[in-house]
């Protein structure tokens, strides 16, 4: 069984044994054991995003596993300043993913929690090395598909005029901007238009949305206005928490906006 090192991943390729020269295109045919990271509110409110992720990864031929002991990444406590409580919850994630080769999640904000904030949360703490190791092997879905697997076209089709909202944590903590658009570009029948201020925060911000509801709502109104201006019927994002804010506000104010997670759109094949 030939293996190829891609960053920290040792990827096993069952189909490329005959090839001597490895190119970027071959990445797509490497098969990986992927451990799923399903944040708590995806589990409870937006399982479709997780299911979409499973469908996509399995279509590409990879094995997916899901440690059932995972619950929450601890971000609500972390953002509210209760770092001890956040750490005790985060430790369950360290346990759940201890044996994972690669962890892929479908949320920019929870992905950022694992990748960017766990090293800070565990800084100077006993399990710091594990936290850093988990951060290194965690990927957000679109980034994993485009940058690690080198995949662009998933064979999906979805007829709609849509616009993409960049979730702030995915955009600024994880650097994700190009990847979702690269993937959506290949979706047959999808017309993707850019909204004015795609990168402006929707106003969710976790506990901010309920601690400062008036500011959060005003920001959400700004985002809905940007979406409506495009004439798109659908807003897509790689963060379901943003979609919860946008859809919740749109429904209350009677705007004709539908929302879907990126994984749900890409899994339409």
């Amino acid at each position: 069984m030939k293996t190829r090192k891609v960053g920290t991943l040792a990827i096993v390729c069952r189909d490329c044994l005959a090839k001597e020269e490895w190119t970027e295109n071959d990445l797509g045919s490497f098969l990986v054991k992927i451990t799923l990271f399903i944040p708590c509110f995806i589990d409870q409110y937006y399982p479709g995003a997780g299911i979409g992720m499973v469908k996509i990864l399995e279509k590409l031929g990879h094995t997916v596993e899901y440690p059932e002991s995972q619950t929450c990444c601890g971000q609500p406590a972390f953002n509210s300043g209760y770092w001890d409580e956040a750490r005790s919850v985060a430790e369950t994630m360290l346990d759940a993913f201890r044996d994972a080769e690669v962890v892929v999640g479908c949320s920019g904000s929870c992905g950022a929690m694992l990748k960017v904030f766990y090293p800070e949360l565990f800084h100077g703490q006993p399990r710091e090395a594990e936290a850093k190791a988990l951060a290194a092997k965690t990927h957000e879905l679109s980034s994993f598909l485009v940058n690690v697997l080198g995949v662009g076209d998933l064979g999906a089709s979805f007829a709609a005029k849509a616009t993409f909202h960049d979730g702030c944590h995915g955009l600024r903590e994880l650097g994700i901007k190009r990847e979702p658009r690269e993937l959506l570009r290949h979706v047959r029948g999808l017309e993707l238009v850019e909204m004015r201020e795609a990168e402006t925060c929707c106003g969710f911000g976790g506990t901010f949305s309920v601690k400062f509801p008036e500011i959060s709502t005003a920001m959400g109104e700004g985002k809905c206005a940007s979406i409506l201006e495009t004439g798109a019927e659908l807003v897509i994002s790689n963060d379901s928490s943003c979609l919860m804010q946008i859809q919740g506000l749109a429904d209350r104010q009677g705007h004709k906006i539908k929302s879907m997670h990126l994984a749900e759109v890409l899994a339409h094949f």
Partner: protein
Amino acid sequence: MSSESVQFHRDADRLTHDLRHRAWIQKALGGYYVKRDEQKAKYTDWQQARATAAAAKYEAVNHLDKYLVELSDKLAARGTKVFWAADGAEAAEYIASVARDAGVKRIIKSKTMTGEEIHLPQALEKAGLEVVESDLGEFIVQLRGEPPYHIVFPSMHLTRGEIDETFQKKLGSAHADTPEELTMIARDVMRQKYCQADMGISGANFAVAETGHISITENEGNARLSTSLPKVLVSIVGIEKVVPKLDDLATLLPMLATAGAAQNMTCYNTLLGGPRQPGETDGPLEFHVVLLDNRRTALLADPEQRDALHCIRCGACLNVCPIFKNIGGHSYGTTYQGPIGSVITPHLRGLQSWKHLSFSSSLCGACGETCPVKIDLHHHLLQNRRNAIAQKPVWWEMPIFAGFAWFMRRPALYRFAAPMLRLFEPVMRAIRGMDIDPASMWTRTRDLPPVPQQSFKEYWRARHAKR
């Protein structure tokens, strides 16, 4: 909740519902974004420029004692009087004594947020001195008795009609329709003030240790005039303003202009290193530089957040902050607004009283992304939150987060969350938005998503049951 927090919530609530204000600020900043991006695109390497600027400020702040001494010595060598003020009261007292000793009656002032921070104009007025703001925006809000709305654009929130009304009332001027006419009214008033003032007060954007200069950036020329015409000049300078070398300004001055006002270069960038020297025919006969601490050393002592002292007060973080744009500058209730204000005010004025500024952010990170000197603004907000809670947890939050942690560590219990949510959904729908609704902070303005028939865990379990 501190009284400051109560004021903040009240003002933020009012402003977020003010659609006229929202549209106005959106319009005011709209042009800025386009021009700023045009300016940034001209740079050969904007990110490298940021790295250079950040490195220069890092060097300065992390060797602050060395550079302040060098600055002070070089200034003094040209006859400048350097006064080190531990706090605002010391600074104000010194400046009042300078005015007294020189027989000063009328003071003309150019824009200084540091002066605003220590309420210098009010302190001097109390000492019986006339203090006139020469910067147009500051002049306007001074007439209206308001604090500045934005650290760079003090009167951004006002329409020409409101300014016209103020001028008519306070200056007895004729009705004016255009920004041009209103500006000329202020120009005429100010010209006499410059020539008659006995003392000028300025701030500084930078202070160059290597050559012993303060550097003042402005567009109007009012600082040039305030610092050259009166016979006494006092410049109040936060100790963090120092930069090591003159050549650092070759990067910092253009970046300040681009980030702050979407300009290639601000109109006047002036180096001042001393009073009138032998061979000069004009300029102040006395030049005093007041170096102000006022709890900057407390921020310095926090190595995690020390880089907040890199701030060049460009205002770029305010311009990109969605919270600032929706609540406006006055809601902050303190001198420094926006993200930088939310980071440093708890340090400068008290963590427990001002922590709400660090909490009132969605942590979108636009501020840290835009900061020309790479201050980790949005991460500092998180650190302030942690520090505030570590010092004094909120009594009703403690059981909630303890409960949250207890529950989330028990996947066997967590399994029941999904069926519970489904069970209570009809009840939740019925009480939606009411006071008894535990989710009312959300449901007052937004719908909750429907609870799906199957959680992901339930789907996964079912999948495995099939296999």
